[in-house]
């Protein structure tokens, strides 16, 4: 039994590591990722619309896109109450995920609104 206890004690660290594997509710995790995706997509579209109205060209437009994405990241962090460990498994999810996914939508609506406002 002593040997069993020793192996149990040394196994404590590895089993704690095993127990520390992300055991989370995957369905809620998916729901949270979907919320982030919708938010970022909508903000990309709105950001593109504003960039076209404002008359941004070339580099300024892309800088504006990253600014919009940074604002969205801050907003999502605030929405999660700054305690993201109860909603996500890592910081990268809420800060970096989907950062470049909205770039195409942004450029589409940017050129669209720029054409409408400034060219036609």
């Amino acid at each position, binding site marked *: 039994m002593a040997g069993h206890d020793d192996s*149990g004690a040394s196994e404590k660290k590895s089993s704690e590591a095993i127990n520390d594997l992300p055991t989370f509710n995957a369905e809620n995790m998916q729901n949270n990722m979907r919320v982030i995706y919708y938010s970022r997509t909508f903000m990309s579209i709105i*950001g593109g619309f504003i960039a076209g109205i404002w008359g941004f060209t070339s580099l300024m437009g892309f800088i504006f896109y990253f600014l919009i994405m940074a604002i969205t990241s801050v907003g999502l962090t605030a929405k999660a109450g700054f305690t993201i460990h109860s909603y996500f498994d890592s910081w990268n999810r809420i800060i970096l995920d989907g950062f470049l996914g909205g770039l195409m939508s942004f450029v589409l609506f940017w050129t669209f609104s720029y054409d409408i406002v400034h060219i036609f």
Partner: protein
Amino acid sequence: MGTGFVIGVLGVLILSHAAYSTIQYRALLKITEEEFSGPPINVIYLFPMEFFVVLELIFGLILCVWAALTVPGKFLSILPDSDENRVVALSDNMDFMMFNHRGRAFPSEINMKLKSL
């Protein structure tokens, strides 16, 4: 969800109005044959409405950010031991579930806490 949606629609309407104002401003510039450097913020002496366009853009952006954060839905907790993730009922296929397996040989956290006492 309802009010967030209304705020989002309001933000888009304000942005559309800003776009329309900018179109009119550009038509004015074409008449006076000047260059377009930005939305009317440097023509403050002309109309107070022109400076209004930039304010409209920023205000519309704020409204749309608010709508983007509230409309898609709330964040749900992913921790298995939070109050809203309680398993209150087992699933129906109890005939296919067995509990007499090797998992009971693993030291659970309750056993470790008891042993450390």
